[in-house]
């Protein structure tokens, strides 16, 4: 599904990631962990094609295609979805209208009518415990941290991606919210055979979404790649060697 | 008084602030101009003023960001407290922006002594006059 071959990345000519190599197969869940400042979010932004992140060497292969030079929208259309740590607000952009546009963009051949879509939205919102009135407001404008993250998951459900990156989606979430979100993602993962890269500090989310591969990042480089057993080690010993 | 600042070096940072006390029956006119003509510059202008009864203040402040100043960050603030009868203030904050890669803002507030602050202090035993003095002091200090 997605493969990073010796990726090195700089911001403003300052190196932040070096020689990152790993891959995810279709349906595989991978956890990316590491201390603060290790570069985990940088991996996420690089994969999503954020213009500030310059790939200085290596290649990202997504579904057999080199996507190094693809703009973020082209990557999104190919099926890459980044769930942000702090989703930004866009005042004046009505949530319902935005989600409808999103749906149309990602499903050019689908036949849901507007009212069928609205019903789908309401069902999903209920499932995620998103208050209905939020759907009539401006995207993320004045939303709590938890509400914003649920919005990200709602968008995931609508766009039906192939590969999702969860950038610390668990931080700042209460126990219930974490449960709703994780369960919804899990169902989506099963339905779509999704590859998931989970970036996290805390292992709690990994109880719901169990990885088969764990990558530990430190100072912009991969320290270790292992299986789920690594999680226990991290919990006991932290990130020191 | 006129103050003219030009940010002509790349990445230059300029902070200009002034506190003005306009005394009873005094007329004060102050004008500032901050010009940004190099890339990635940062300039902040903050003028605070207290206008006593019968005082007249005229404050004009201009931020001009030129075509060759991408990455500029500019801010201008006028914060004016009108203390008594016949206090008059004019604030003219202007922005002229010829480049889109900028963040420019200005704000201007000309307002009264906060009545709830005044009441609070007086309820703590300060006379009206002393309370006003305290409020003016903290306005200038903040």
């Amino acid at each position, binding site marked *: 599904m997605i493969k990073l071959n010796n990726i090195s990345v700089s911001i403003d000519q300052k190196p932040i990631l070096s020689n990152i190599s790993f891959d995810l197969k279709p349906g595989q869940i991978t956890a990316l962990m590491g201390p603060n400042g290790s570069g985990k979010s940088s991996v996420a932004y690089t994969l*999503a*094609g*954020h*213009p500030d992140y310059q790939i200085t060497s290596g290649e990202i292969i997504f579904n057999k295609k080199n996507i190094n030079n693809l*703009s*973020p*929208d082209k*990557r*999104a*259309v190919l099926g890459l979805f*980044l769930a*942000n740590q702090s989703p*930004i607000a*866009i*005042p*004046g*952009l*009505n949530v319902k209208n*935005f989600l409808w*546009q999103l749906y149309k*963009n*990602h499903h050019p051949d689908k036949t849901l009518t507007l009212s069928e879509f609205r019903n789908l939205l309401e069902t999903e919102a209920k499932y995620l415990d998103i208050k209905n009135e939020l759907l009539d407001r*401006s995207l993320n404008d004045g939303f709590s941290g938890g509400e914003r993250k649920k919005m990200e998951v709602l*968008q995931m459900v609508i*766009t039906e991606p192939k590969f999702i990156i969860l950038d610390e989606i668990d931080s700042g979430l209460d126990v219930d919210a974490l449960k709703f979100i994780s369960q919804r993602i899990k169902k989506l993962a099963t339905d779509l055979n999704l590859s998931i890269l989970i970036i996290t500090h805390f292992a709690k989310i990994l109880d719901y979404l169990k990885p088969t591969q764990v990558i530990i990042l430190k100072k912009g480089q991969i320290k270790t790649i292992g299986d789920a057993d690594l999680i226990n080690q991290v919990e006991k010993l932290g990130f020191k060697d | 008084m006129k103050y003219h600042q030009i940010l002509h070096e790349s990445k230059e940072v300029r902070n200009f602030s002034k506190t003005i006390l306009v005394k009873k029956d005094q007329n004060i006119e102050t004008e500032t101009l901050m010009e940004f003509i190099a890339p990635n510059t940062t300039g902040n202008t903050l003028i605070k003023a207290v206008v006593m*009864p019968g005082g007249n203040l005229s404050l004009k402040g201009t931020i001009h960001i030129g*075509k060759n100043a*991408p990455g500029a960050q500019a801010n201008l603030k006028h914060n*004016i407290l*009108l*203390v*008594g*009868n*016949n*206090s*008059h*203030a*004019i*604030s*003219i*904050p*202007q*922005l*002229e*922006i*010829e*480049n*889109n*890669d*900028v963040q*420019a*803002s*200005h*704000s*201007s*507030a*000309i*307002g*009264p*002594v906060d009545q709830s602050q005044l009441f609070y202090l007086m309820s703590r035993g300060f006379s009206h006059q002393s309370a006003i003095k305290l409020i003016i002091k903290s306005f200038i200090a903040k």
Partner: protein
Amino acid sequence: MSKTKYQKPDYKYGFSTPEISVFKSKKGIDSNIVKTISSLKHEDKKMLNFRLQAYQYFLNESLPSWGPNISNIDFDDIYYYLKATDEESHTWAKVPSSIKNTYDKLGVPKAEKQYLGGIKAQYESEIIYGSLIKKLSKQGVIFCGMDEAFKKYPNLLWSHFGKIVPPDDNKLASLNSAVWSGGSFIYVPKNVKVDLPLQTYFRINSQKMGQFERTLIIADEASFVHYLEGCTAPIYSTNSLHSAVVEVYVKKNAHVRYTTIQNWSTNVYNLVTKRAQVEENGVMEWVDGNLGSNVTMKYPSNLLVGKNAHAEVLSIAVASGIQHLDTGAKAIHLAPNTTSRIISKSISLGGGRSSYRGTVYISQGATNSRSKVVCDALILDKFSRSDTYPVNKNYEKSASLEHEATVSKIGQDQLFYLMSRGFSKSESEGLIVNGFLAPLVKELPLEYSLELNRLINLQMSGSVG
């Protein structure tokens, strides 16, 4: 929507307008032209003298020394009076292709295209117009052309006309006072609330929005009316100078909303004086959308003369290409407890220049008054420009006057976020820009807001103008 061409009066509805033959004055202005205009309209001596005096003021005054450069206006190269069934032998062929393209892209049907291009008259409007007029006259509401208003209600007119904007107010107002023709007169009696917005579109016995329109609205105590003028689709005008004057009386406890959308072709100088006088507890709202013209200078002004009076100005300006839109608002607080709120949102792109120009003056004695002005500007590219020129005067120690302005480009984080959801760069920019304008656009009637959004997206994608 916009104005029809002059049609012969429809006697079925009981309006009669004097027969006016086809006439086109020669170019330029002098006192003879002013006299001819007055006589063609069969006006009385009072109006003739008013015009002649105004013409003298016009000669003696100079153009404003501030604002966009309008020194290029050649006052001698303009027709000051046109009243005809065939205004300038318009043909569809003569309408600029940029405007034709816009209509195509907006999906405007063929008949409407020709109408908006200034060709055909709208006959369908008669039926809507008829029933509206019946209802209004039952309520005692007067809604007719200015020319007609003077004939029918001279006392009412003369007690209000030219008082809020006197003929010597400024050079362009003097010009308008000398050669004005057309425009709307609205009178709403006490306690009457007109629930349907009144539009110039409905006054089919007027020519299309003229160069020197004069509008007068009198909202008597505790009444309500919403007046709507203009059109989002571009209007092609061969007249290069449009200088209208609007006077609004908001009497005690009354409420008036005045919405304007203009999208004049880019050969037009649009210089307008709009002013309201608001009495005790009155509310005046201006919604002002500026999309077109070469240069626009327009600052809806509010004289808050009665206590608790409130004024609001919501202003949108989208300046592209060679446009310089110099717009804003004024609020003059002359009584206690008065409030004003001015919100301006502007966009500059493709070399356009948008400037906010405003004045808030709180006079001594306007105790406990409050004013807030917020100006936000987006500059979309490095060729465009944005300015803010506010003047804030507070002479009252118990009043508060606040003003904030920001100028920036489209937020990169917002852009990345939308692109990461699959929207192309220009789609993302369009969504952000529409979001930026949304709080003001939602104050417009629905069909205007939809068209406005589409029009802005078209402008941004560079496919028109």
